[in-house]
C-alpha cells in the first residue's frame, strides 16, 4: 500500500500578468484562455512506507510544485494525487514565526501548525528545546536569535511532530556540523519507523545517503526514474536525455 501515489498528474499555472478581474473579463467575454505553463506533465510515481524518494532537477523543473501537491496546498489540473497519512511539509521552516514572540511562544504556535495537540506539545516541549539546544534562550524574543537558532528551533519542532510523510525541501542542512549529524540520525530513525520521505535538494551526497529511489524532473516531466545513485549521477554528470524516456 503506497503512502503517496501520483497517477498521471498534470499541474498547470496560467500567466498572471494581468489583474485577475480584467483577465477574467477577457477570458469569459473573449473566450480566450491565457497560455498555460505546465509545472508538471503526466507525472506518475509511488512511494511506500519507510521509503525515501529524491526529487531532482533544475530550478523551475516542478520539484516544489510536486511537494505542494503532496501537502495538499494546491490541486492538480488532471490526474490524481493520493496521500495516505499525515503530511508534514518542511518547505519553509518557521513559516508561522513572529520576531516579537519568545522562542517558547513560537514553539507552541509552530507545534500546533505541525498538527500537535495541546497535550502533545506540552509533553514534548522540553525534548524539542533540548534538541534545538536553546534551553538558555527559549524565553527570549525570537528577534534576538541568530538565523541558525531560528532554523534549529523550527527543525526541532517539525521532527517532533509525528507525521507519516515528511517533505524536505532544501532544509536538511540546518545548523552546524554537529546539529546536522544529529538531524540526519533522527531522520534516518524516522525512516526506520516507517515514515515516508520526499526530499528535494541540490546536494547530491545528502540525497544519496537518505534516499533509495530518485526521479529527475525536467520542464515538468519525469525524464529518469530509478535507484537514487544512478539517477543522481546521471543528473550531476548531465547525461544527455533520451527523447521520450518515461
Amino acid at each position, binding site marked *: 500500500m503506497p503512502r503517496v501515489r501520483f497517477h498521471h498528474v498534470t499541474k498547470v499555472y496560467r500567466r498572471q500578468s494581468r489583474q485577475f478581474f480584467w483577465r477574467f473579463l477577457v477570458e469569459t467575454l473573449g473566450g480566450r484562455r491565457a497560455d498555460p505553463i505546465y509545472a508538471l506533465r503526466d507525472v506518475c510515481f509511488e512511494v511506500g512506507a519507510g521509503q525515501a524518494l529524491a526529487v531532482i532537477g533544475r530550478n523551475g523543473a516542478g520539484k516544489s510544485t510536486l511537494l505542494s501537491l503532496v501537502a495538499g*496546498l494546491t490541486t492538480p489540473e488532471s490526474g490524481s494525487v493520493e496521500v495516505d497519512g499525515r503530511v508534514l511539509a518542511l518547505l519553509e521552516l518557521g513559516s508561522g514565526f513572529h520576531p516579537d514572540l519568545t522562542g517558547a511562544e513560537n514553539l507552541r504556535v509552530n507545534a*500546533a*501548525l505541525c498538527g500537535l495537540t495541546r497535550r502533545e506539545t506540552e509533553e514534548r516541549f522540553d525534548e524539542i528545546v533540548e534538541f534545538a539546544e536553546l534551553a538558555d534562550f527559549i524565553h527570549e524574543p525570537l528577534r534576538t536569535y541568530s538565523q541558525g537558532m531560528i532554523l534549529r528551533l523550527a527543525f526541532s519542532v517539525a521532527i517532533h511532530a509525528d507525521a507519516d510523510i515528511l517533505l524536505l525541501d532544501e532544509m536538511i542542512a540546518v545548523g552546524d556540523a554537529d546539529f546536522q549529524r544529529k538531524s540526519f540520525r533522527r531522520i534516518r530513525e524516522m525512516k526506520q519507523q516507517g515514515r515516508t520521505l520526499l526530499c528535494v535538494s541540490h546536494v547530491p551526497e545528502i540525497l544519496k545517503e537518505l534516499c533509495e529511489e530518485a526521479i529527475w524532473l525536467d520542464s515538468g516531466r519525469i525524464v529518469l526514474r530509478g535507484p537514487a545513485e544512478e539517477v543522481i549521477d546521471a543528473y550531476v554528470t548531465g547525461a544527455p536525455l533520451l527523447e521520450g524516456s518515461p
Partner: protein
Amino acid sequence: MRLRNTGFLLACLVTRDFKIRYRNMSLGVFWSLLNPLVLMLVLTFVFTKIFPPPGVENFHVVVLSGLIVFSFFSLAWQSGTMSIYGNATLIKRVPMPRELLPVATVLANGLHFLIQIGLLLALALWAGYRVNPFWLLLPAIFGLEVIFVCGLALITSALDVYFRDIRYVVESSTTVLFWLVPIFYSFAMIPPDYRELYQFNPVAAVVLACRAIILESRMPPATLLWKLPLVSLCFLAGGYLLFRRLKRNFADYL
C-alpha cells in the same frame, strides 16, 4: 482536514495575534482602553459644547457604547480581510485549515472588545446606571456581533486574494458606516422615514440593543432580537460556503 488539534491551533493563532499587537509597547494592553476613551472625550466635547444634542444624559456613556461596538466591527473586519494575504507564507507552505486565519484574527480583536466592554460597564455603573436582569442578554448580543464579523471576514478575506481592491472597499465602507451607525446620535433623532433602513444594519442593531439594556434597563425590541441572530448566522454560513469554494486556489494566487 485535521480535526484533532483544530481547537489548539485556533487558540494558538488567537493568542499570537493578541500578543503581538501590543508587545513591546510600554502601556501594553492599556491601549485597548485608551483609544476608545480618547475618542469618547473628543466626541463628548464636540457634541456637548459645540453641537449640544437635545437633552441627552450621560452623553459620554452613550457615545462609548456606540464607539466600542463600532470599533470592534471596523478593526476586526479590516484586519480579518487582510488575514489571508498577510499570512501568505502560511497559506503557501503549511497544510492547515485556512478558515482559521480570518476567524482567529476576528477573535483576537474580540479579546480587545471584551476589555472595552468591561470599561463600558464600569463607566455605566459609575454614572449611576444599575445592574439589571437584561444584562444576561449582553453576552449573546456581543457574541452575535462577533459571529457576524467572522462571516464578513471570511467573505472579504477570500475575495481579497483574487481582487486586492477589496481591502479598500472594506476601508471605505467602515468610514461610511461610522456616520451611519448611531454612535454620537440616538435612534430617536433619526427621521422616521430612515429608521427602517437602520434596522437592517447589524452593527446599528447591536448598538441599539446594548443601549436599551444598559441605559434604559429594558428588553431590546423583539424584532431586533430575531433579526440579529438571523442575519449573523446567515453571514457566517454564507461566508463559510464562499470561503470553501475559493480556498482551493489560494496558494496559486498569492
